[in-house]
């Protein structure tokens, strides 16, 4: 009974999760930019341990949604692409974190489990 209630509650909450952020690489990009202000393509690649193609695909998706902004310049003769989180992206990350915290709260309430703040 408890499991079924929890299942339904989580299902409802999941429907409201932002699909643009709710993916490992995209969540990583947005989180990294929230802390690092401006990061280059290479920084993000190292941070998230991903390939050029994969990162490029996800950054394009986030840029198209207006969550991040790319700044293209040259460093010497080499092209340099840097990314910055937009206010829309920042709000989306905040909303995602709040939703996750809410899910956690619901799960704890239904389970009656003690509070664990170890992720904070």
């Amino acid at each position: 009974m408890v499991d079924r209630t929890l299942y339904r509650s989580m299902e409802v909450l999941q429907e409201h999760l932002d699909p643009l952020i709710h993916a490992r690489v995209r969540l990583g990009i947005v989180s990294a930019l929230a802390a690092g202000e401006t990061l280059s393509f290479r920084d993000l690649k190292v941070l998230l341990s991903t390939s050029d193609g994969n990162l490029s695909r996800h950054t394009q998706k986030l840029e198209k949604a207006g969550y991040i902004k790319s700044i293209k310049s040259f460093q010497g003769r080499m092209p340099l692409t840097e990314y910055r989180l937009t206010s829309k992206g920042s709000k989306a990350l905040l909303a995602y974190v709040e939703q996750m915290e809410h899910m956690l709260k619901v799960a704890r309430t239904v389970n009656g489990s003690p509070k664990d703040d170890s992720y904070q």
Partner: protein
Amino acid sequence: MHIQHGPVTRKDQSPENQATEHLRFIRDVMERSASFTAVPGWGMFVVGLTVLPATWIASIQNSSNDSLIVWFTQAAIAVIIGLWTLHRKAHKSGVSLTSGPGRKYILTLAPSMVAGLLFTIALWQAGNLDLLATLWLLLYGAGTITGGASSVRVIPLLGISFMVMGIISLFISPEWMYVLLALSFGGLHIGFGIYIARKYGG
């Protein structure tokens, strides 16, 4: 029940653990992002090496003014080495010095360096150079702590070490001051420089 498509792919976890894992993932990425360091370890190491002969040359000068000229020359060399290696490391990492961690480090360290320079000139004009070493150590330490606040933990630790040296300088006799400067600007830079270079990519 699994939180679909998120960063957590283990389906055997409870929804509570999954949500915790998602939040932990965000925190970890943010921490790693903030701990990118543009501080050049090898540059710091070379600066430390150049400080050792500079300390000896300054110590054998006949007047405080001559010693100060040696220190100014050393400071100029250190700034050139520092900026060049900072630029090299940033270039190697594909980071621009005008943005990101490098920019943050320079902007937060610069006010202390400028304050140190202005105070040095003021004390030199006043003819009172007794507290110069203390001033340099404390200001450089304070600047490094703030400069490294958004960098890897070892940078603020370097700043704290300089401030501790600054405090020690208040209690030692003037003849030991050169030894303290060699140990701090030389020794600390060499030690921390090697550590940063080995652990944080140059």
